[in-house]
């Protein structure tokens, strides 16, 4: 076995085979999926904007992930994290939808352009006072932008992984990221005024 194999998460079971021994399944799951608890919580916390709800949803997500662990196709630690985050994302979205009141994506092109046209947008960003408002501005982003921003900037996932998690094409991920960043600039500039 090569050294690389140590970091590799095996595929728990092939479809159509007899269900694996629960104790072995649990030990594989604990070894490879539990370590991504912080990532799961961070995503749920940013999506729900509430620590209580995030805790409940992370627990629910882990149960769901465990029940469908057989669907995980194996891979490295990053694949295991992306797979878990897909479950967390879907659990949170289902919950948010049921709860209602989540604004859908509607993007104001004028605002977008105005933000881009501002010449010192970046210098505004490094201003300390603006940084203080950064978290508030991320929270204020519409869900679809917040999702890709958190996955990209905080989890540092690839566009391909984000596309899989959010269930949208890579092109959409990239445009949402660009729009999300533009909105952030706009929000931070507003916070400074």
């Amino acid at each position, binding site marked *: 076995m090569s050294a690389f194999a140590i970091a590799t998460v095996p595929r728990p079971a092939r479809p159509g085979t007899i269900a694996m021994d629960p104790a072995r399944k*649990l030990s594989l799951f604990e070894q490879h999926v539990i370590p991504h608890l912080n990532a799961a919580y961070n995503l749920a916390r940013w999506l729900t904007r509430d620590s*209580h709800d995030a805790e409940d949803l*992370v627990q*629910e997500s882990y149960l769901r992930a465990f029940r469908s662990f057989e669907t995980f196709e194996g891979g490295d630690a990053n694949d295991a994290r992306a797979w878990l985050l897909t479950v967390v994302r879907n659990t949170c979205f289902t919950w948010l939808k049921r709860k209602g009141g989540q604004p859908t994506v509607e993007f104001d092109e004028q605002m977008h352009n105005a933000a881009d046209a501002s010449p010192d947008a970046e210098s505004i960003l490094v201003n300390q006072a603006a940084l203080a408002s950064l978290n508030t501005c991320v929270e204020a982003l519409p869900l679809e932008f917040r999702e890709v921003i958190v996955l990209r900037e905080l989890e540092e996932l690839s566009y391909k992984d984000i596309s899989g998690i959010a269930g949208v094409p890579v092109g959409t991920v990239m445009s949402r990221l660009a729009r999300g960043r533009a909105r952030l600039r706009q929000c931070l500039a507003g916070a400074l005024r």
Partner: protein
Amino acid sequence: MNCQTARQMMETNDPALEDHLRACPSCILRTQARYYEAPPGLEGRVRQSLRREIAPREPWRWMAIAASVLLAGSLAWNVALVRSGVDARQVLAASVLSAHIRSLAATHLLDVPSSDQHTVKPWFNGKLDFSPPVKFLAGFPLLGGRLDYFDGHPAAALIYGRNKHVINLFIWPSTPTAETEQTRNGYNMRTWSGSGMTFWAVSDLNATELRQFVSLYRQPD
């Protein structure tokens, strides 16, 4: 420079950092936005709920047999009562009370013994097609939860304590019903409905304290 080196430079206050941040808005997020770490205790709760998930189901099979025998018996009894013209609500009250007494008599008070609402609530997921509100109530510690069956529905039973008394709070989805209070065989019972669910609180607790329990539970969060 990439964002990783930028993050390391945060600590050293290197002037080159500011130039990089100006050029790279991602870095600002990566170095400045809050990363929420899982609160302590969450990992333990996750592991616990996974253990429960793989716990052997043998006792369940035995309980399922016992439950079907009880159910068949109670169905026959209910049919007899309906034929005899007894008010359906009183029949329900009687079966709620039986469930309360049965839960205390058998060794089946709690399926999920936990005083933590974040353990009890997720436990019901996948077992019920509704989400019972599990609340923390001052003076009435949560003891745990259990699955039950009433009126043709699976029901959630939340178990709260008060000194040495046990309160069973049964919840299942239903159309709104009238709010009532009654005493049967020395047990106090209160029922009400809301959010598409019917609630029955049963206990040998005195009527005043049970009323207090109900009003605490019904307080909006």
